[in-house]
């Protein structure tokens, strides 16, 4: 059988072997923890605590600030020390709650449900639990999950796709989660399926994770609504549009939602969080996190308390062999380079990568030779070299005519460019300008 995939894409060096076989270890933070109020797409959460309050692990710090928003919970017990703007991984200053950890980890009361009790829950009740638990797209996008799971016509949803592709190099947090918490993933999927009577659950796994496929297969054989889709290992296989294409052969563009193609895509961590929220009554407090890179002494997978600083996690991985040259939040293809790692982790940060040599900025940019490698690599069927030129020259209308707004910013074009041109960066910049223009026009 031919493996499912998409057109275009690239094959970066995987680097997953560094942390692939390191079991998930809980990391207990020691210092203060920082909770930015905006860890998701949509309205920032609204504060409900004030300085001096004593909070428990799992206590709500801020409630959802609207429908497209999510509440934020404390991941440790302690005292609210400060409420002020703090720097986050993207470099922005975001209003945050700072909590002094008392190292007790005393937890709030969570309502655990037995299997029978869960069976009796209706779709709306499950959705309510997801909403209250503050679950957002934990693969990186941070779109509130309860919004994603309430499409206009739930009966028209035919596929719930679990994004188990983890196509970014170096990252192994999803891999470890699938291997170690397979049951959470499968049961979480079953919970989501309860809301969609006509949907099938598909686990999309790249074929470099055959052990994951075996694990999942052993748990889903008794349920004919669940299946596995084996995907070709290729970047960006885990891109939402690429994954939908690989699994269902349906295509969506930037103006459509997956629901328009009858699909909902959720990341491994998100689906596991659904399990935690419904069965254990636990909100999003922890997440699985990879710390890796060629010169990290002990690359590892941690279960971190959200809000722990990146620096503390790096120290827990025994630090570096040489001084760092580049520090990335997320994967090497789409992650953000940080200038300071004393910033908090959030619901959506899945990795810290540290490189002691910065390969990408060593290269010198030369003239475009029109070779078309970016065209072959682009999973969105664009002409990146031209879009980059239109961006440099500021011609917005032609940029749009050549479908520039369809770019998913996966980085494949810059990755292959033999002239080392910053194609992705140029396109991103222009996209932002045009989208801002459009927003202003609406106002």
């Amino acid at each position: 059988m031919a493996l499912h995939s998409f057109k275009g894409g690239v094959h970066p060096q995987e680097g997953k072997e560094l942390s692939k076989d390191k079991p998930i270890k809980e990391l207990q933070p020691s210092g203060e923890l920082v909770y930015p109020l905006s860890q998701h797409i949509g309205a920032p959460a609204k504060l409900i605590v004030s300085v001096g309050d004593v909070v428990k692990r799992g206590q709500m710090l801020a409630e959802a600030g609207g429908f497209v928003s999510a509440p934020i919970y404390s991941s440790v017990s302690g005292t609210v020390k400060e409420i002020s703007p703090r720097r986050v991984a993207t470099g922005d200053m975001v209003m945050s709650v700072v909590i002094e950890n008392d190292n007790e980890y005393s937890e709030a009361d969570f309502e655990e449900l037995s299997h029978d009790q869960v069976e009796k829950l209706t779709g709306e009740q499950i959705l309510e639990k997801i909403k209250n638990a503050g679950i957002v797209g934990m693969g990186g996008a941070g779109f509130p999950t309860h919004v994603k799971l309430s499409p206009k016509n739930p009966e028209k949803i035919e596929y719930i796709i679990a994004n188990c592709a983890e196509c970014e190099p170096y990252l192994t947090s999803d891999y470890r989660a699938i291997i170690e918490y397979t049951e959470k993933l499968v049961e979480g999927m079953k919970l989501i399926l309860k809301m969609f009577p006509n949907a099938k659950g598909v686990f999309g796994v790249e074929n470099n994770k055959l052990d994951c496929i075996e694990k999942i297969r052993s748990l889903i054989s008794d349920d004919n609504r669940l299946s596995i889709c084996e995907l070709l290992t290729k970047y960006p296989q885990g891109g939402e549009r690429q994954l939908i294409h690989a699994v269902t052969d349906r295509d969506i563009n930037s103006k459509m939602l997956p629901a328009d193609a009858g699909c909902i895509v959720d990341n491994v961590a998100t689906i596991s969080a659904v399990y935690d929220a419904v069965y254990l009554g636990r909100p999003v407090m922890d997440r699985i996190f990879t710390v890796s890179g060629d010169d990290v002494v002990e690359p590892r997978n941690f279960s971190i308390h959200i809000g722990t600083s990146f620096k503390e996690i790096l120290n827990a991985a025994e630090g570096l062999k040489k001084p760092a040259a580049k520090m990335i939040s997320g994967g090497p293809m789409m992650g953000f380079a940080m200038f300071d790692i004393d910033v908090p982790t959030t619901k959506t940060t899945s990795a810290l990568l540290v490189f002691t040599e910065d390969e990408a900025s060593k290269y010198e940019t030369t003239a475009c030779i029109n070779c078309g490698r970016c065209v072959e690599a682009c999973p969105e069927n664009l002409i990146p070299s031209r879009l980059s030129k239109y961006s440099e020259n500021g011609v917005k209308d032609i940029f749009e005519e050549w479908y520039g707004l369809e770019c998913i910013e996966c980085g494949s074009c810059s990755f292959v460019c033999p002239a080392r041109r910053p194609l992705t960066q140029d396109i991103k910049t222009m996209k932002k300008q045009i989208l801002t223009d459009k927003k202003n026009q609406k106002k």
Partner: protein
Amino acid sequence: MSDLIHVTSSPHVRENTDTKRIMILVIISLLPASIFGVFNFGPKALLVLLLSIFSCVATEAITDKCLKKKNTVSDLSAVVTGLLLGLNLPHTVSWFIPVVGGFFAIFVVKMLFGGLGQNFMNPALGARCFLLLSFTQQMTSFSYDGVTSATPLAQLKAGESVDALKMFLGTEAGTIGETSVIALLIGAIFLILMGIINLRIPASYIGTFAIFVLLFGGHGFDWTFLVEEICGGGLILGAFFMATDYVTSPITPKGQIIFGIVLGILTGIFRIFGASAEGVSYAIIFANCLVPLIEKFTVPKAFGIVREPSKKDSKLEEGAKA
């Protein structure tokens, strides 16, 4: 952490292939034809190739210096141009022909338009056409084994019979690099396997040309004639190594196929209805000029775009919002 931390936009990793590596692979792919040419035509051919390469590289270095630009010789693109130009010359030309040709290719066709990536015409072919028009006598007299003789393609046009096997092997009169189909194909297969070129342009070019010859060649469905037409002249060299020049061919996949078709038709017209037996060089530089137009009409639809967003749609959207 003493050293400064780098902050750049993603992606933070890159593939190994750079422009220089691509140029090296192109040079390697031209080696079979070059070596064969030198064996076939003798040391004079080697001199022509070297002079041509030297002239191109020197012109680029001097131009960079005069224009106070960064020296770009190390990307090896001038070497490729020089080699291609040399392969497009008869080995009998005087020493100044490759020198003048190299200067024209690099200075006039490439550097005046802004250097690598900016020229709208293939530099080597631009220079060849310049030389053909300026030094017609030298550029069109060929010899083989010391005997002046017409190229097989010219013989074919004159209605004489030619030896197709010799044309395939290349033991016949012609420019240094165009004669041996087998040597050229070895290089072409190498380029395709290394992922440097794809078959869109060569296949549509040769395919269209073949159909054109069958329809208008005046020989009906004469397969021998067809094979001889394809093996003759600069078609194989042109189709795999010159028409596929990145800079002067369309970047859109559909555009590349159309480009090949245009080339096939033009080559057919020039060869069959024109005064000269040759037509590849003119066809390619003419089609080079059509590239912006071809690209304009072949912008591929982005992934998931079913139809053009029409005004009706946006009105509907607005209505829905209201």
